[in-house]
């Protein structure tokens, strides 16, 4: 195939709708079931839509990547040590060697695949709350958004549109915020700063709190 045609094919494939990448996963299952007596077997097919969400390793890695070492304690206590809610592999033999294991014998039977429950969301919410209270976490995240080493600028500069978009992409890479979501986040930023006598750091804090709370980044 000529290089030009290869390039066109590549562009065509990569330009396919985003639903291929992010769409719901379909499960189709078939099962033979005995029908009422004398009626033979009935083939049953059902379909349902499920959503794949990250396990405790995925959730903790996103939070630590975004907020840095300041997030580790909250993440360890609320996420890594909750396999029953967040799912994820649990090697009891390696865990038992640690002084503070993330997985205990009670967790061994926890399912590896996480499901959507409000209990999981409650712990994730509380984790976000705990993390954003730490100024060091906010500075780390803001610095990442601007691709800088130092986030001390949050004390003097409020987040602009580009900062909000960049902050969003820390959680959900490659996606562009629609205008209405951007405006809503800006409103929160302004309101957050106003609650603390105009301190710009508060605007950054509530920006990252809202983005952390939004569950979209859990979706695989």
């Amino acid at each position, binding site marked *: *195939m000529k290089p030009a045609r*290869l390039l066109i*094919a*590549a562009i065509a*494939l990569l330009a*396919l709708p*985003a*639903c*291929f*990448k*992010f*769409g*719901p996963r*379909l499960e189709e*299952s078939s*099962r033979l*079931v*005995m*029908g*009422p007596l*004398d009626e033979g077997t009935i083939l*049953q097919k*059902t*379909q*349902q*839509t*499920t*959503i794949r969400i990250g396990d405790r390793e995925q959730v903790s890695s996103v939070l630590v990547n975004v907020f840095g070492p300041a997030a580790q304690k909250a993440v360890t206590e*609320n996420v890594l040590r909750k396999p029953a809610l967040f799912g994820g592999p649990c090697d009891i033999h390696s865990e038992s060697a640690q002084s503070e294991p993330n997985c205990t014998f*009670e967790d061994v039977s926890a399912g590896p695949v996480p*499901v*959507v*429950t*409000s*209990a*999981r*969301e*409650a*712990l994730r919410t*509380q984790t976000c*709350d*705990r993390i954003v209270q730490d100024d060091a976490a906010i500075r780390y995240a803001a610095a990442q958004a601007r691709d800088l080493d130092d986030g001390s600028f949050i004390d003097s500069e409020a987040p602009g549109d580009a900062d909000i978009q960049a902050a969003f992409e820390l959680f959900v890479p490659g996606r562009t915020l*629609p205008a*209405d*979501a951007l405006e*809503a*986040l800006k*409103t*929160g930023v302004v*309101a*957050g700063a106003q609650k603390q006598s105009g301190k710009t750091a*508060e605007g950054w804090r*509530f920006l990252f*709190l*809202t983005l952390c*709370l*939004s*569950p*979209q980044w*859990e979706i695989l």
Partner: protein
Amino acid sequence: MNRRAKNEMSRRQALQILGAASTVPLFRNPVGMLIDSIVGGLIQEARAEAAGRPAPRNLIVFYLTGGAPRWHFDAAHDPYKPGLDRGDNKHLINGFQDGKPGLYKREYNFSGGRTLYLPPLLASTIAPSSGKSVPMSDLLRNALVMQGVNMLSDGHQTNYAALVMPNPNGISYSGLIADASAAEIPAIALPKAPRAHKSASGNGITLLDNYAGPLGQLLSPFQRQPADAGFLSRRAALDLAMKTALQKLGTFASSSDPAAIALYSAQGKAENLLKRSLGDLTVAYSGLIDKYRKIIRKAIDDGRTGVAGVLDQAIPMTMFSDAERAFNKGVPTNIADLRDLVTGKTDIESMAENFAITEYMILNGFSQYVSAYIGNVYYAQRTAGVFETINGDEHEVGGIVSLVVNSARYRAFYACLAEFIDGLKAKGLWNESVILYGSEFNRDPRPDGSGSDHGWRGNVYTLMSGVIDGPYYVGNTSTAFGSAGPTRIGAAEVDSVVRGYVASTVATVARIQTPSSNNSSFLTQSAGGAFALNNIEPSKGVAK
């Protein structure tokens, strides 16, 4: 190889390379795209429809472990033959005063006096915490008993799952409730209870695997962890701004991931519950479990006097003839008091835990679906001095042991149920709640009394709710009542009740979509709101 073939192979190779490099799975064909959009549309349609529907009723499913025998409890044997003498098998004396076919809205009837073989269980009284004794049969006033249910298969595991997911691989009751409920923890399954779960929208079920601080396990994620008071105050003040932003982000997320709605809904519910003050869960729970322990203890202790003919007197095994002792295969023959066969060891804890948790979660509105198991409270002494549980298969336990042990179970169960229902009534929730109890199948008592076998063609489900104007009985339990006595009471007639009818009936009363659209409901709602029996075919006792 000619030039064209060489090019063809090169195109295939190129596609393979592109497939490996791309994040787009190449197996997603145009049909897959079409299915995605159809499913997405169906979900949106279902949600739009659901938005206009009332919330589901609470649904509590109690699982009677092991294929529990119901033929001396609330299953009526051959309602068309009201005579109480069932021939050689003295287990069977239940019936109705009027054995007319059709709708069975009658007073329950018992044998005239005592019997060594079948305690007239439903004639005895139980006492919830109010202290006011009530006949067990009172609980049937708001009940529909569906008997002779053909489970379509004979297996503990299959039918254990079918109790909560009546259509194999279909949506479960817990999934239907979770998808339609605004409760913060909409569906929970307690230890050992059936937990087969499938939701159309991706909502999960919360599982409890042990009883160590159960309320803490269920609710501790929602108890506020220590935080700076100033931060929490500012957070609360910015609640509207954050919710608006989250709503916009949620709409954005679900535009490409329709199932993301379940995730945002769960996050919203979590926020709601985090704002509530849950109080001291340990204190709340200890009060509840103490209450149920007392109720159960009273039910089984009273049973020693209340279960006439069996547990109200010392019956030595020597009273039984050889044939009658054979009736109780394996039972020690030197027992001086029949009651000692069973009362040496009890297990009231799990039943008390299950009811305490259920009451707390339902009455406080945290959940709308609970699945709980009801095991035996008495152990049985089948080898002298050795007490063992008979929660499971009772093929060889012998007639008397099964009767006595299960009588205690049902007395305790109904006493707890009466208490729970009183609690629902006090909160104005009895008309908004549905209780379903059943097992893998009924039991088929052997004529020689040595035990029982799987009655998978004659299962019994009981449905209770404040909106059921009963008692109602549908279906049959027997196909053969010959002169030699009943040979099979676990068998239903062909074309009789199948579990799809049960599913549709449960769904109708619970206000959820039926998992079995091919079968109609036994109950319909009148203009006044109460549910009454549908038009049924009298000769078969099934819905038309």
